[in-house]
């Protein structure tokens, strides 16, 4: 693995999170949209979401969305201001902090449902 | 493989690229052959600047520049060359600017100029701002700009091709042979005219500011043909290079108040030059440094360096005015001039001598007007004798552009007039022999060990301070090393990128340059410019105001025949009488 620094990992995470949310979004559109096929079909799909990999995945997707959103803002700041480039490292740590907070918050909120089921 | 071009240029440093550019403008087909990618050439290492009497900062005239050059060369400089140079360089610098070279600027937006050693106004009255610079990266900018212009012109480059032989028959150059590093194949290049610009050979010395690849290849090839090398005894040493590395440390470091110290921490210059101490002239400082080292007061692992102490200077001076050196010292020695002592050593820097040429770069075959038809040379490897016995700072970059350009124009003009000469049968024969000898050698001697022995002995015996006995000893050492060289083995049998083979070949070239240099130096029984002999301490104009021409004796291996060439003591419009050289 190339020993890149903050920027490399920021990019990698941004790409992974972007692709992950895209995958989730596509599923989401399909599942929510599936009500057009009637209630039974809709609920059948939603039962699969009950499986634990999906529930844990959900926490990560939440954190991913937050990371992607805030890192996206970091990128925009870098693209349009010189200072953004100068402070990209600090901004990335801020993004990580916010994402971690979102992760913890999402995990805490979802925990009861995770262990208890619905 | 066989190639045909009107003009071939060997080397892609400042001189080669300039020649290629101007040859291409002369409406002939041009190819440039270089053992390095063009932008890797050592011209890129030059920092200080390029001298031209533009007068952007202070009044200046080409006559003043010409005078300084002649005097700097200790009157061994050919004055016609100096005059052509001092005039042409002005236009050449403007041309570089028109090619986009990013010079530093004056507040009015003109090319910025600064002072440099030996450059004066009014024939030696006071220092003048003559060096045109681009920060402290002038050479880098020249190299990049010239390469860029060649890309624009669509010059054909053969990169990582090592020229191994010139085809010269009946006094006419017909082309050359080159070894392609990637495939191990030999290529024959057939041409109407060939321009040599392959740079210096500083690597024959242990401590040098020169690149590993500066091994004097083309000088040696020329010399192997029984053709002369001019003024090989004149080799410039700079007193302060970073220890072991030889990377240049500007004189300004002492100008700002730096102090040289030996291993006991003693300011030894107080002993050698009680009044001006560390600011004594270069030769005195260097001699004192070497004396300290020889008497066991050197520093470093091998006790062969001296400390330069800046710790008493304000941090702003060190990090401001001496920023470049500070960075180099920090990077390479891990010694921060702000709080540490920095280790320095005299470093081999620049070859004044080389392949003799006339003012258009045409290669000379003797000291009396003979020449090799169709063969031109320029740059550090050539000797128009602009630099005489000692080169002034900033005059080498000028040499590259002025005489590189002249050689390019002359070669193209010549090529337009003539037919492609006839190529002899089997032109690759000598090169094949050379490689076969190296590859099939059952010998066990190690090329690196021989090279190291050469570099150390040259440094000790034909270095800054010379005397008869040492040089006589060195003549023998070089012959011994040549005998050992015949016994060198190459372990890598491969054809692809065989750098071991190439290094072994380069060692052969270096040994030839060393041979010519040592014999020429031993022969010149005077001290002049960079040639400083303990046994003949004075300049001797009566006997020695002449150029040395060293020829290999083709009948008697190991023997060098010395001839001479008169110094041209008159320019076209100006002439300066030899006088004692005092500043």
């Amino acid at each position, binding site marked *: 693995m190339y020993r890149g620094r903050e920027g490399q990992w920021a990019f990698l995470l941004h*790409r992974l999170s*972007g*692709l992950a*949310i*895209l995958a989730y*979004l*596509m599923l989401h*559109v*399909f599942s*929510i*949209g599936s*009500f*057009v096929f009637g*209630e039974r079909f*809709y*609920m059948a799909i*939603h039962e699969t*979401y*009950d499986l634990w990999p999906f529930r844990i995945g*959900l926490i990560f997707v*939440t954190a991913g*969305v*937050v990371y992607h*959103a805030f890192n*996206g*803002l970091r*990128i*925009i700041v870098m*693209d349009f201001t010189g200072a953004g480039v100068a402070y990209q490292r600090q901004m990335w740590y801020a993004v990580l902090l916010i994402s971690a907070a979102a992760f913890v*918050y*999402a995990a805490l*909120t*979802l925990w009861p*449902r995770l262990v208890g089921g*619905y | 493989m066989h190639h045909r071009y009107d003009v071939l240029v060997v080397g892609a440093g400042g001189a080669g690229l300039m020649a290629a550019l101007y040859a291409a403008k002369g409406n002939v087909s041009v190819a440039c052959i270089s053992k390095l990618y063009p932008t890797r050439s050592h011209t890129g290492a030059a920092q200080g600047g390029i001298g031209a009497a533009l007068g952007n900062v202070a009044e200046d005239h080409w006559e003043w520049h010409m005078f300084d050059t002649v005097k700097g060369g200790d009157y061994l400089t050919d004055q016609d060359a100096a005059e052509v140079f001092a005039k042409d360089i002005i236009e050449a610098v403007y041309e570089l600017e028109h090619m986009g070279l990013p010079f530093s600027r004056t507040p009015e937006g003109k090319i910025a100029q600064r002072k440099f050693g030996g450059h004066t106004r009014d024939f030696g009255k006071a220092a003048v701002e003559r060096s045109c610079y681009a920060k402290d990266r002038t050479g880098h900018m020249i190299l990049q700009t010239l390469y860029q212009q*060649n*890309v*624009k*012109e*669509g*010059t*054909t*480059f*053969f*990169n990582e091709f090592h020229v191994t032989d010139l085809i010269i028959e009946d006094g006419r150059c017909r082309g050359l042979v080159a070894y392609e590093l990637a495939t191990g194949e030999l290529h024959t290049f057939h041409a109407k005219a060939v321009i040599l610009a392959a740079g210096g050979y500083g690597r024959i010395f242990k401590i040098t500011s020169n690149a590993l690849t500066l091994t004097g290849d083309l000088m040696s090839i020329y010399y192997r043909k029984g053709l002369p090398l001019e003024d090989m005894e004149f080799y410039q040493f700079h007193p302060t290079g970073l220890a072991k590395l030889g990377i240049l440390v500007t004189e300004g470091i002492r100008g700002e108040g730096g102090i040289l110290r030996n291993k006991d921490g003693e300011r030894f210059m107080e002993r050698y030059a009680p009044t001006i101490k560390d600011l004594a002239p270069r030769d005195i400082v260097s001699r004192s440094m070497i004396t300290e080292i020889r008497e066991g007061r050197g520093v470093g692992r091998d006790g062969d360096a001296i400390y330069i102490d800046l710790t008493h200077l304000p941090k702003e001076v060190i990090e401001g005015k001496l920023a470049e050196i500070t960075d180099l010292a920090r990077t390479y020695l891990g010694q921060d001039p702000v709080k540490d002592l920095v280790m320095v050593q005299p470093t081999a820097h620049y070859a004044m001598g080389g392949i003799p040429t006339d003012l258009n770069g045409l290669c000379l075959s003797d000291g009396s007007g003979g020449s090799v038809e169709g063969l031109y040379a320029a740059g550090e490897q050539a000797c128009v004798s602009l630099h005489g016995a000692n080169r002034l700072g900033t005059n080498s970059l000028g040499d590259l552009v002025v005489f590189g350009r002249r050689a390019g124009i002359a070669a193209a003009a010549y090529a337009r007039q003539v037919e492609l000469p006839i190529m002899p049968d089997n032109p690759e024969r000598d090169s094949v022999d050379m490689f076969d000898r190296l590859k099939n050698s059952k010998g066990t001697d190690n090329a690196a060990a021989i090279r190291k022995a050469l570099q150390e002995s040259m440094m000790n015996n034909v270095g800054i301070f010379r005397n008869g006995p040492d040089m006589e000893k060195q003549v023998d050492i070089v012959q011994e090393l040549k005998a050992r060289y015949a016994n060198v083995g190459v372990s890598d049998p491969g054809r692809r990128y065989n750098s071991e083979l190439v290094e072994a070949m380069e060692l052969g070239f270096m040994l030839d340059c060393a041979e010519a240099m040592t014999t020429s130096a031993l022969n010149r029984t005077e001290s002049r410019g960079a040639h400083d002999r303990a046994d003949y301490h004075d300049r001797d104009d009566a006997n020695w105001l002449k150029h040395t021409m060293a020829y290999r004796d083709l009948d008697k291996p190991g023997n060098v025949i010395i001839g001479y060439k008169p110094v041209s003591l008159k320019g076209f419009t100006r002439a300066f009488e030899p006088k004692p050289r005092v500043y």
Partner: protein
Amino acid sequence: MIRARTFTDARQQSHSNAELNWWVFMRISGLILVFLVLGHVYMTFIQVSEADATFDAVVGKLANPAWKFYDWLILTLSLLHGANGARYSIEDYVRSRPTRAWVKGLFYTVVALLFAFGTIGLFSI
């Protein structure tokens, strides 16, 4: 041996502003999406769970035209934004031309179908 590329060679390179426009679009859509998506995530997922997204709840919420528009904007922007982002990745990682054409074609079709599906769904309520 290299033959240097010349001025004319370089000038002949074709050019369009497509990449620039997509680049700008990624930034603008991103800015808008921050509000839309974070709002959406917060409202529909942190406050109520996926399991709460029952048939009735979804249908009920989407009956409101404002929510309809809000969700459709998310759908459009994020699909476009995501699809273009995925295109970057495809162009980076899928190096063989034919395969790349295939992958892209398939991917765009799926995205288009999903977009149609989502839109029809939204407005059929």
